[in-house]
């Protein structure tokens, strides 16, 4: 892996020339029989994969309006073609969003449209061959489902929806991606993506209590499975042991401590992440989300708060109400959702992002900070794609951009934004999202990080920025690995609540 080097920064962001086939064969490992079967997928490529795949495609076309409309509507205008970080970093034309969609659209046209059946060459339709399937496996795993392309498409065509559908078809014929399926298996078996069993988790939390006590002299608790707590905190499992994630977990605990909030983690649902979304599988997405519903019901909590994780927040904010009833406004006859919604306290938004929680407390003057404790940092903020383009905060458009920045400015003195063409809804993915955070995709990850690294480099040169805050476990893990490849220190990345943790004064109010 050491052989992978960073592509050169572009001196100004010109659109790169095409290098056809550049990333052929750079795709991920194929899942093994054992891993597939553990989650109920066929172990390996089934004999009648062709018919099964086409049938699955028909099924998805009838279930998802997004897919149906997006297969038809693209005019090949090319507006999206230069918007993908993987295209910019790899120059492989099949990493242009429209070309990625066309890998599937060509098959759609062949089997589901009249012109494609009659004149395949004319409309760019093609049979579903094994080569095509291989190409899907390769290039639909070089998309992080970040939806940047969708912002710029005149019809909002969302390549993420196409990627999810393609992955679902691949899974249904036994041709899955090892990394994502393995992780989903762990969630079902153990309760979190990292496979941390409850006793290990308990040990970790006790260790953290001691560490915080040593550092601050104050008994900040990290409670687990407390019945009747007000808040259930669901956070990505990386927060329990990975660096720099753990510093944000300490930050959440300090905020809860300082505001006198009774809270708990759950050993059963010790994972906010939901890889069901990455593979586009509604069943998996739902089953994984139901663990949190179950934990909330069993513990009798009034609020559900979600930690710093991008795709988890998209799932929580946009999908939980649909999947598991965590939210508000269910039909009075909707017994499934009402069962939980009656229990939750609707003076608060359900679910709540930890940044919404903290910002609320800051606004209500329930927290005190010594900003100078963050003075060694000159900070910028990386908008994580799923938070930026798949969710919101604060109940108003754009809250997901303002609230984390507000928090940073409340706890630190030095803040600079990066180039506006790469922030807010135009933000670039870290390069490791959407189920790509695995070593077998390292080349894709390094190259895909190029656009973000370029602008980070600019603010580092212009303003001396030495800390890039974000609110996503995947971003943190990806940048920790990738920053050194681009010549930065890996500790340049960290969480927003890590900064909160540095500056918060405990035992004052």
């Amino acid at each position, binding site marked *: 892996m050491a052989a992978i080097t960073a592509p050169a920064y572009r001196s100004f962001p010109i659109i790169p*020339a*095409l290098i056809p086939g550049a990333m052929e064969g750079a795709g991920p490992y194929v899942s093994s029989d054992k891993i597939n079967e553990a989650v109920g997928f066929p172990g390996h490529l089934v004999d009648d994969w062709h018919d099964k795949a086409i049938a699955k495609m028909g099924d998805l076309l009838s*279930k*998802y*309006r*997004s897919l*149906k*409309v*997006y297969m*038809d*509507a693209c*005019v*090949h*205008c*090319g*507006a999206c*073609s230069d*918007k993908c970080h993987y295209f910019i970093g790899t120059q492989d*034309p099949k990493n*242009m969003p*429209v*070309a990625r969609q066309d890998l599937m659209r060509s098959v759609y046209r062949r089997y589901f449209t*009249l*012109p494609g059946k009659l004149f395949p060459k*004319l*409309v*760019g339709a093609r049979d579903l061959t094994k080569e095509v399937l291989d190409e899907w496996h390769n290039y639909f795993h070089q998309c992080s489902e970040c*939806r940047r392309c969708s*912002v*710029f*498409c*005149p*019809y*909002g*065509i*969302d390549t993420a*929806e196409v990627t999810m559908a393609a992955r679902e078809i691949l899974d249904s014929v036994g041709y899955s991606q090892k990394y994502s399926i393995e992780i989903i298996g762990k969630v079902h078996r153990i309760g979190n993506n990292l496979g941390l069993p409850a006793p290990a988790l308990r040990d970790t939390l006790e260790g953290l209590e001691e560490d915080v006590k040593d550092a601050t002299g104050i008994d900040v608790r990290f409670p687990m499975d407390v019945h009747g707590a007000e808040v259930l905190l669901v956070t990505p499992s990386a927060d329990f042991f990975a660096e720099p994630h753990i510093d944000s977990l300490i930050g959440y605990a300090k905020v809860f401590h300082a505001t006198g909030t009774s809270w708990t983690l759950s050993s059963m649902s010790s994972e906010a992440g939901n890889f069901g979304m990455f593979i586009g599988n*509604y*069943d998996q997405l*739902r089953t994984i989300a139901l663990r949190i519903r179950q934990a909330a019901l069993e513990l009798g909590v009034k609020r559900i708060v979600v930690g710093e994780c991008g795709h988890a927040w998209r799932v929580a*904010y*946009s*999908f939980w*109400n*649909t999947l598991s009833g965590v*939210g*508000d406004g*269910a039909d009075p006859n*909707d017994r*499934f*959702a009402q069962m939980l919604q009656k229990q939750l306290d609707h003076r608060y938004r*359900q679910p709540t992002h930890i940044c919404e929680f903290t910002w609320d407390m800051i606004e209500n003057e329930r927290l005190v900070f010594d900003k100078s404790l963050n003075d060694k940092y000159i900070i910028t903020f990386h908008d994580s794609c799923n938070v930026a*383009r*798949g969710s*919101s905060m604060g*109940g*108003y*458009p*754009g809250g997901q951009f303002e609230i984390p920045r507000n928090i940073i400015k409340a706890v630190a003195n030095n803040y600079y934004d990066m180039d506006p063409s790469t922030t807010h*809804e135009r933000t670039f993915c870290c390069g490791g999202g959407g189920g790509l955070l695995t070593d077998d995709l390292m080349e894709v990850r390094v190259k895909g990080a190029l656009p973000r690294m370029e602008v980070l480099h600019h603010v580092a040169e212009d303003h001396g920025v030495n800390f890039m805050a974000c609110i996503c476990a995947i971003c943190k893990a990806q940048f920790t690995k990738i920053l050194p490849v681009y010549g930065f220190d890996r500790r340049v990345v960290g969480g927003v609540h890590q900064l909160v943790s540095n500056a918060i004064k405990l035992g004052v109010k």
Partner: protein
Amino acid sequence: MNTLLAIFFYLSTLVFVVGLLARIRTYANTPAPLKIPTTPAPTTTGGVVLRMTREVVFFESLFKANLWTWALGWLFHFSMLLVVLRHLRYFTDPVWEWVALIQPFGMYAGITMLLGLMGLLGRRLLVERIRYISTPSDHLMLVLFIGIAASGLLMKFAVNPDVIGVKSFFLGLMHLTIQPLPTSYLLYAHLSLVCTLMVIFPVSKLLHAPGVFFSPTRNQTDNPREKRHIAAWAAKMESEK
């Protein structure tokens, strides 16, 4: 020739209307199980209407994406809109007042439409990325539009067939009678190309016109926490267990 064209017109109109309605019905009946609006997403229905209006009238997203494509595309579409409206004079008697009013603009719109189309074709041929993603049908589609626009303009500025005759032909069609059509090969070509366009419409990328209104990333309100959104097929999973 007038009988042949009359039949072609009836058939292609039928294909166009039935095909398009069927497609729209499929879109409307296919559920959108999850909330997937893209940022900046409005939180109210009024906001969604505004957003959609901006998309359809100004091509807002395209504007953000690429100024050249936006300028050429917008020029083409709004010129085309004017041109189509101008053609209403062949179908109304007496001609509606506002249709009469826009006649002079419609004339220039024919020229700007052609310019826009040439620009789009140039882009398709010259820009490496766009050439890479283009299929033969993408080029032919532009050629078809250019054919329609060019034949129309030639009639306007060079050959001048008898427009009164054309009008009586179309009024006739509307009353299910076949009236004579002035003899002009250019006119025949113009009308056949338009019929071809109508036939192609419901099975081609021209479906972007109805499609944009059904795109979940653009037409959903961003209120997933406030209101439970669930598709019928997904709700079934809940009653099963």
